[in-house]
């Protein structure tokens, strides 16, 4: 029985009375039930970006290397020699909170499809995760499930998961973040777009069968459904990495022929969004015959078939008359395939079922969607949290360092990445655990570096500055390995956009990303917006996750963070400052999240980055590690203890400032490097040529980390002590104290 379409039903679909009115006007009649479903998903925040579009316009999206900016399934940049990198980041926050394993797994599956639908073989994944308080009762279970889900999907599919970040904050207690990023490589002249062109061309469905997975949650509350409907409609999908692998191989083989016209994965809003968006890009129309859609359940309605979010499916348009080639290849790989429609010139999507038309909608208004300029207001508390009275320094700075180093957000994430196959593909040159990971390009000397993350505490204190800092840190992570930063993908996680203060945070963050990306010449080529991340009116800290990829001319000269030998010089590219607003130190040692994030000079950031890259690729430095959470002291400690063998250091600082500020300030644009004494002159010259400040810090060697300032000892700790807190700080959150 089909429910009666009304304003009330539209409201249950998340459509306002005005939006419903618009639909009626557009069609010149009341929509059918299936049409209502189609509108509701196409005009949802997720598909239409209705709240965010006006702001996203600010982002720089072009550059000499950009082949494809935002608007397609993923962004594409040119890396020379006929190769292109294809990458994107996406969130799967809500499903991962409900079912951590499957939610995270299908998040990985979705982002992989976005990348291989464009013709790329995925060569790396990254995952940025946010959890609530470490001691929240649900936290360990959520971490276990999410990490196992990412591992379960990525490992079986065969993509190395090489990086990411994990952080904790109470604001994520009821709303964790699971942001997954995938990077693929493709021949630059064989990029496939989601475009349904060529009137008369067949539309094919390939991949897993359709079930009642994840059908628009809003409809579940509808009184029209019986008691069983809850059980009938799982909102959480189950991932099948094996089918995804088959789909990948089948797609890549298809793409090696010239039979494909366009292709797009069925992600959110499944068959609806893939078909509508493909026709929208081509300016064509589309006919779909639902009777031909492969399905795994009986009695599925047109509404369900159009809205199902079953995983591991693709929609493609082939050259007319060559359907059989597609079907044969799918048969080789044992996946379902069917011709489900054809391209028309009507400019409409016409859906039939049992010989009857169940939906006929003009495509243009569906894809143009809605655009809102939602009200914005700087929260009244913003100035309050930015004021900080400097707390007195702790008595024992060594203990303070141990506390910061062992804080779960800072401590080693080896527990996580050891569960990820980070080497499959035979490309991983720099494994997780350094600033950025590097995968080589087989058959060339080059390498690709990737990093993802965001300091959301900074974004909470000042979304504009925080977003700039996030871009700068990604840039710095790549530069430290020696990679030239190329382009950005983002995943903008925020609260409810209907609240003016959230909208303000969003707009400020986007402005920050735009300014930083412009200054650092790293255009944004793809991304994702995730809004409504809040529970009981408590929003998450604004979290504009930044993913960045870079290029190394020589992968064999990738630089990693740990010191490599004793008796080497240690120096700092950049300068220290005494800003401690929003630092991990302030949070861990003084229990406060307050102040202003450190200032950033993007020209200085670029200079430091250039110098680090030149030093690295020239083979002059043995190690490089940027200063981020935990500041200089944590960076130095990590240089000492993250190598194959721990190597100590003796540091003499001269900066005229309080010891705790000097140690723990998170001022940006700083990279700790080490090199043999013989290279000192060249290092100096390169730093100068790039206008990067260089300050000598000390020497490597022995088994302690000793930091003095103006002759006064600040820290003197055995490496074993550092190792113990660093290795256990995260693990104990999941496994309990050992």
């Amino acid at each position, binding site marked *: 029985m089909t429910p009666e379409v009304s304003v009330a039903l539209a409201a249950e679909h998340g459509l306002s009375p005005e939006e419903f009115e618009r639909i009626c006007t557009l069609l010149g009649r009341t929509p059918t039930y299936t049409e209502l479903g189609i509108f509701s998903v196409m005009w949802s925040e997720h598909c239409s970006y209705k709240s965010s579009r006006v702001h996203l316009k600010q982002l720089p999206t072009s550059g000499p290397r950009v082949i494809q900016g935002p608007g397609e399934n993923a962004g594409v940049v040119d890396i020379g020699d006929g190769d292109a990198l294809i990458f994107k980041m996406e969130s799967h926050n809500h499903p991962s909170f409900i079912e951590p394993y499957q939610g995270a797994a299908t998040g990985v599956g979705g982002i992989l499809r976005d990348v291989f639908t464009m013709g790329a073989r995925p060569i790396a994944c990254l995952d940025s995760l946010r959890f609530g308080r470490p001691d929240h009762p649900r936290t360990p279970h959520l971490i276990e499930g999410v990490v196992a889900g990412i591992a379960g999907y990525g490992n079986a599919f065969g993509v190395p998961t090489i990086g990411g970040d994990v952080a904790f904050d109470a604001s994520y207690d009821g709303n964790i973040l699971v942001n997954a990023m995938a990077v693929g490589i493709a021949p630059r002249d064989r990029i496939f777009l989601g475009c349904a062109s060529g009137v008369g061309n067949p539309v094919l469905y390939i991949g897993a069968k359709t*079930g009642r997975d994840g059908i628009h949650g809003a409809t579940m509350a509808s009184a029209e459904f019986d008691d069983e409907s809850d059980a*009938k409609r799982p909102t959480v999908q189950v991932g099948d990495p094996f089918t995804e692998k088959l789909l990948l191989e089948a797609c890549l083989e298809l793409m090696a022929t010239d039979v494909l016209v366009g292709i797009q994965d069925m992600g959110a809003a499944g068959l609806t969004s893939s078909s509508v968006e493909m026709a929208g890009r081509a300016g064509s129309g589309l006919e779909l015959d639902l009777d031909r859609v492969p399905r795994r359940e009986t009695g599925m309605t047109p509404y369900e078939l159009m809205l199902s979010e079953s995983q591991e499916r693709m929609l493609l348009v082939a050259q007319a008359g060559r359907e059989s080639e597609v079907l044969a290849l799918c048969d080789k790989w*044992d996946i379902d395939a069917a011709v489900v429609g054809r391209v028309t010139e009507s400019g409409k999507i016409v859906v039939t079922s049992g010989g009857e038309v169940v939906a006929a909608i003009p495509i243009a208004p569906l894809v143009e969607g809605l655009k809102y300029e939602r009200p914005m207001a700087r929260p009244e508390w913003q100035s309050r949290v930015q004021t900080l009275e400097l707390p007195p320094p702790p008595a024992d700075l060594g203990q303070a360092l141990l506390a910061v180093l062992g804080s779960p957000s800072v401590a080693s994430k080896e527990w996580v990445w050891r569960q990820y196959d980070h080497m499959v593909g035979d490309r991983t040159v720099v494994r997780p655990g350094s600033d950025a990971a590097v995968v080589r390009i087989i058959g060339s000397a080059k390498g690709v570096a990737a990093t993802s993350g965001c300091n959301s505490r900074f974004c909470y204190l000042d979304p504009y500055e925080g977003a700039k800092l996030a871009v700068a840190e990604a840039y710095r992570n790549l530069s430290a390995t020696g990679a030239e930063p190329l382009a950005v993908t983002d995943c903008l996680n925020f609260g409810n956009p209907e609240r003016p203060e959230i909208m303000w945070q969003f707009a400020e963050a986007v402005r920050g990303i735009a300014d930083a990306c412009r200054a650092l010449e790293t255009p944004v080529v793809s991304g994702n917006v995730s809004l409504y991340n809040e529970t009981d009116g408590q929003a998450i800290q604004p979290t504009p996750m930044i993913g960045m990829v870079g290029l190394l001319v020589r992968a064999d000269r990738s630089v990693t963070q740990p010191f490599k030998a004793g008796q080497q010089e240690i120096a700092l590219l950049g300068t220290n400052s005494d800003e401690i607003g929003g630092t991990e130190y302030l949070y861990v040692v003084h229990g406060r999240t307050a102040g202003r994030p450190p200032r950033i000079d993007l020209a200085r950031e670029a200079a430091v980055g250039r110098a680090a890259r030149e030093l690295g690729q020239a083979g002059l430095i043995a190690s490089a590690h940027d200063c981020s959470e935990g500041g200089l002291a944590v960076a130095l400690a990590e240089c000492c203890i993250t190598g194959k063998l721990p190597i100590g250091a003796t540091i003499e600082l001269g900066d005229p400032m309080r010891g705790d500020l000097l140690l723990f300030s998170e001022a940006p644009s700083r990279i700790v490097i080490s090199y043999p004494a013989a290279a000192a002159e060249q290092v100096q010259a390169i730093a100068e040529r790039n206008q990067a400040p260089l300050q000598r810090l000390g020497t490597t060697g022995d088994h302690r980390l000793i930091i003095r300032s103006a002759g006064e000892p600040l820290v003197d700790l055995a490496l074993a002590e550092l190792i113990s807190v660093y290795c256990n700080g995260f693990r104990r959150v999941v496994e309990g104290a050992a």
Partner: protein
Amino acid sequence: MTAKIYVTLKKSVLDPQGQAVARSLGRLGFAEVQDARIGKYIEVKLDGTRADVRDRIERMCRDLLANTVIEEYRYELGE
């Protein structure tokens, strides 16, 4: 006492494991197989003294052994 607990995916939830097994059985010549579904079978040994065993097992299932978003469970009590 022993509780035998069966945790299975809800009917409409995709069961990739089961599908793969059904396909393999077919390939192995078991043409009569139409479908397979795979779940967990858990045997829990408990202190026999508790009167409210059923209640406790229900709780174990909901708290840990099954995720009721996608799974359902049933159990039998043995000796």
